[in-house]
């Protein structure tokens, strides 16, 4: 099933080389459409675009280092009611694929006839940083590739990306590889499933024979894990004062629920926290205020975050879009990533790892957690 070939790059133009491969997928009718990130006409941001022909393919940029939205949610929107009859190619980063796998388990998306093309992720900038880079006249993707090649750390990347231990896509049919590859000359194209292999059979790309990929990848990942662990210990220190320290973090929440809306895992059509349960009589507010002396308005923001956390922590993929969407700069990534990691460790569950692994909160083992309830 595993087959590794190279896409040859002309004049160090990685983006163009990948695009010509995508173009031939459409041309050879191997996919009927492609869901890809595409630069908007103003050139300072990228949106997901569903393309059925290759006009405009020039603007496609699958290595653009920005993630305004997770495609997992978009694919859920597209496939929730029915799956595709003809193959549709979707180009995704690791976090998007992992979230998609979770959504499939939550019965919110279908993988039928999807050709998942994963791309090595070198990280993304926040939307505003990305726009600023564009304004300065640089191409953020070229800049990032250059920095990556030089081996430098880019501290401008989103925190979520700086500490992401999954730069390599898993569960993809095809992987476009950049890490440990001389991407100015060659880009790795690897098939990981039978579906992917069938696609590669239609092409006559030369074999991939650089052996340093695996070594570079594991080196890169261990650097990320180190940074992740630093984040965990920061969090531990900050919350060591108990309840108050952790809870006061949510005080500035303005209850916009942006974090919930951009979260690829939060799938409920109707959120409990937006239900009439949270509509109260005028007198009730006075009663609460009287009890504590004063209450913070809008109310129930801490409950919202803790409640959301308890619902989705088992499936959190750490994409950090919640933090990117927060207008109050609440360090959501740090909190959610740390808590989720701890929760997932209990059940030895890794979200997005395997479609066959049941979601921790939908299953149980008779002989686990014996001490709970028996004291």
């Amino acid at each position, binding site marked *: 099933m595993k087959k590794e070939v190279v896409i040859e790059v002309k004049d160090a133009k990685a983006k163009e080389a990948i695009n010509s491969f995508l173009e031939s997928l459409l041309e050879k009718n191997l996919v009927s459409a492609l869901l890809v990130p595409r630069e908007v006409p103003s050139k300072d941001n990228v949106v997901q675009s569903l393309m059925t022909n290759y006009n405009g393919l020039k603007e496609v940029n699958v290595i653009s280092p920005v993630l305004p939205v997770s495609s997992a949610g978009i694919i859920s929107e597209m496939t929730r009611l029915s799956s595709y009859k003809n193959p549709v190619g979707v180009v995704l980063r690791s976090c998007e694929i992992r979230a998609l796998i979770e959504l499939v388990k939550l019965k919110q998306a279908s993988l039928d006839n999807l050709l998942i093309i994963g791309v090595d992720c070198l990280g993304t900038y926040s939307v505003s940083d990305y726009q600023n880079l564009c304004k300065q006249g640089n191409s953020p993707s070229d800049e990032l590739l250059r920095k990556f090649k030089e081996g430098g750390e880019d501290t401008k990347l989103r925190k979520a990306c700086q500490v992401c231990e999954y730069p390599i896509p898993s569960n993809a049919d095809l992987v476009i590889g950049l890490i440990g590859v001389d991407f100015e000359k060659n880009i790795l194209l690897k098939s990981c499933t039978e579906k992917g292999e069938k696609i590669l059979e239609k092409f006559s790309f030369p074999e991939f024979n650089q052996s340093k990929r695996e070594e570079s990848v594991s080196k890169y990942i261990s650097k990320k894990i180190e940074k992740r662990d630093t984040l965990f210990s920061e969090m531990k220190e900050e919350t060591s004062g108990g309840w108050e320290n952790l809870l006061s973090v949510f*005080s500035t929440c303005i209850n916009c629920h942006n974090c919930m809306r951009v979260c690829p895992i939060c799938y409920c059509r109707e959120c409990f926290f937006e239900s009439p349960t949270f509509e109260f009589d005028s007198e009730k507010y006075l009663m609460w205020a009287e009890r*504590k002396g004063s209450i913070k308005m809008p109310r129930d923001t801490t409950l919202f975050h803790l*409640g959301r956390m*308890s619902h989705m922590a088992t499936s959190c993929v750490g994409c950090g879009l919640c933090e990117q969407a927060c207008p109050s700069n609440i360090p959501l990534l740090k909190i959610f990533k740390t808590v989720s990691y701890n929760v997932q460790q*209990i059940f030895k569950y890794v979200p997005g790892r395997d479609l066959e692994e049941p979601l921790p*909160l939908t299953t149980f083992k008779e002989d686990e957690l014996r001490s709970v309830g028996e004291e």
Partner: protein
Amino acid sequence: MANFEPKIVGFLCNWCTYAGADLAGTSRIQYPPNIRAIRVMCSGSVDSVYILRALLEGADGVFIGGCHPGDCHYVSGNYKERRRITVLKSLGLDDGRVWIRWVSASEGKRYADSISEMTSYLKRLGPNPVSKYWSL
């Protein structure tokens, strides 16, 4: 603090613990009146949000009573609640204010003992500090 009376919100499963509490009553077993019992159909129906809400509103403790593992009227509700409580406790907020106990319909004594034990534990622990935070 000597006369601090903790407030406990109790979620009792209809088939086991609620009947167990009933038995404690009809058997005239004495236990502290600190628990406010809410009957639910299954311990598996107690979402973490209910527990968090009680605590954030200032309850000193939350007690969840369910059937013994293997005895759930709905087969697996208590097993799932056991996982949910484990998740809740790992959010980093656990200071022993959330108790879950399996109490069957015939265990009136175990119910009374659990409530006594929890009440005296909370008396030692003191009031829930969250009841004073205005900024939640």
